[in-house]
């Protein structure tokens, strides 16, 4: 039996520490979790994402109070009940819609920051892989959520995406019907995607966020120069009061205070969008109720899926599916394709710098083309950009293999 101080006041720090180890926990997770000083605002994106996820969760809880997962009722429960009857229902919906869109913008910034500074390399592979798992789960979460208002875009996006599972010439329509629970997206489809969206996938996301934080604890976050810091030595300096000489700061309260400043700036933008410019996250086509006998003239996904959608488009059915499949999983392997020994920002890594900017520009071009109608010159441009994207993988291997140790 452990020792318990009989005089400790209930719920005092000592009392809690004896029962829960809160002092150790606080040290490990916050006051003695060391963050390098040499970072910039891009290092705040992780906490910005966590906060945005929090907003999505809270707004989602309130939407859940009035949403009806039934093909006959869903559309009106969103567009009539929540939007016009529920007090501040519009607020939750607009936070949820804008949040779902902006969270991907921040995810992409977060990812490209990691790629630019080589934060997926040498001991940080699990950070990258757990982050990619989060990206994929967030994508599934966004897609399943997009089904719920049961408008035209919900229905037809559901139709097109579930059809992908027929595997092209494999013609696995049994699998497609199994996923839908019907020959076409219908009530069974809506209710199962509702389940995924409000329970299963959020559970997975929360678990993955914990894992993602866990993967950071031992290798620590990277810094602007990719410098290998002796964290124990730097921590001793800091604790000895030599804060100026030390290369690190504690996560809480020093790093977090910087994070919260960035979050403050971000939330100004976020709520500006929620109150004045929510339209970008609300496709007008989705304000028509789902109709299985009428395809909208153009079907396109939300902006954050456009780059991978565009990789699907310019090829024939089977090749398109293969290219699409490769695009979905290729980034997972980044830590293993990059053979360079250097952990350094891209601008110090020669050819890798060019590779990085080609990747960024190519994904932006694919995103733009994905929104344009598939005709004429756009088809050719789409084909070229898709091929460039696919070639970037092998190119990275060759480039980093040749890279000299800095």
């Amino acid at each position, binding site marked *: 039996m452990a020792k318990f101080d009989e005089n400790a006041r209930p719920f005092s720090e000592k009392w809690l520490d004896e029962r829960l180890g809160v002092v150790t926990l606080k040290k490990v997770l916050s006051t003695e979790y060391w963050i390098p000083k040499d970072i910039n605002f891009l290092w705040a994106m992780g906490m910005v994402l966590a906060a945005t996820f929090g907003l999505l969760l809270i707004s989602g809880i309130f939407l859940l109070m009035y949403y009806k997962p039934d093909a006959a009722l869903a559309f009106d429960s969103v567009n009539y009940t929540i939007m016009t009857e529920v007090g501040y229902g519009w607020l939750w919906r607009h936070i949820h819609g804008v949040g779902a869109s902006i969270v991907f913008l921040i995810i992409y910034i977060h990812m490209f920051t990691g790629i630019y500074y080589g934060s997926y390399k040498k001991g940080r592979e699990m950070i990258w892989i757990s982050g990619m798992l989060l990206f994929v789960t967030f994508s599934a979460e966004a897609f399943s959520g997009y089904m719920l208002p049961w408008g035209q875009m919900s229905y037809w996006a559901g139709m097109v995406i579930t059809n992908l599972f027929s595997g092209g010439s494999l013609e696995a329509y049994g699998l497609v019907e199994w996923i839908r629970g019907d020959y076409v997206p219908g009530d069974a489809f809506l209710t199962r995607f509702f389940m995924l969206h409000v329970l299963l996938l959020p559970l997975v996301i929360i678990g993955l966020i914990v894992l993602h934080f866990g993967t950071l604890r031992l290798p620590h976050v990277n810094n602007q120069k990719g410098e290998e810091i002796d964290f124990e030595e730097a921590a001793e300096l800091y604790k000895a009061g030599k804060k100026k000489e030390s290369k690190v700061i504690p996560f809480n309260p020093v790093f977090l205070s910087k994070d919260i400043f960035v979050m403050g700036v971000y939330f100004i933008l976020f709520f500006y969008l929620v109150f004045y410019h929510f339209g970008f996250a609300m496709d007008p086509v989705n304000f028509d109720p789902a109709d299985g006998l009428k395809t909208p003239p153009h*079907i396109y996904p939300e902006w954050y899926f456009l780059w991978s959608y565009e990789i699907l488009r310019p090829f024939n059915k089977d090749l398109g599916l293969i290219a699409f499949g490769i695009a979905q999983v290729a980034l997972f392997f980044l830590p293993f394709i990059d053979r360079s020994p250097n952990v350094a920002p891209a601008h110090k890594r020669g050819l890798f710098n060019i590779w990085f900017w080609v990747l960024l520009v190519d994904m932006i071009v694919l995103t733009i083309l994905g929104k344009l109608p598939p005709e004429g010159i756009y088809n050719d441009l789409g084909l070229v950009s898709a091929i460039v994207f696919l070639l970037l993988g092998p190119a990275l291997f060759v480039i980093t293999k040749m890279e000299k140790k800095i």
Partner: protein
Amino acid sequence: MKEQGRRDFMGMALGGFTALGGLGALYAMKRSWDPLPSVKAAGFTTIDLSAAQENVLNIEKWRGKPIFVLKKSADMKADDRDVVVGSDRFHVTIGLCTHLGCIPAYLPGEKIFRCACHGGEFDASGHEIFGPPPSPLEIPPFKLEGTTIVLGEEGPEFKKMKDAGLIA
């Protein structure tokens, strides 16, 4: 050592039964995702072909899917995939693009179907003539009864097309 053997055996026995139960649970989960019997059973559509006009596309519904019914005009090429009723020829297909399942629009002037999603085109017989569609528009199982057609049932005409590999 003997203790270890005992423990291993217990572990394997527990693992085995757990795996068995897990498999059973997985099967139950798979079955829960299956389409319901009521969904599968609802599924015959009867269409009267006698009222159709030439070069005017009628869209019917079968198992939630749109069905194209187009009475061919004399200048359209006859095809083995046509449904023949007396002297009239009909194009009867599932109105979903064989690429990713959007509904192509019929352009009566050009006498083709064009899909808005990815630009695929089909001729009046449902053959793919442009873009990503890998195969012709699919023919649903049908049975002719005089001038009416029943979808969801395989009649002799359908079986003949199926044997000739013309369905899709």
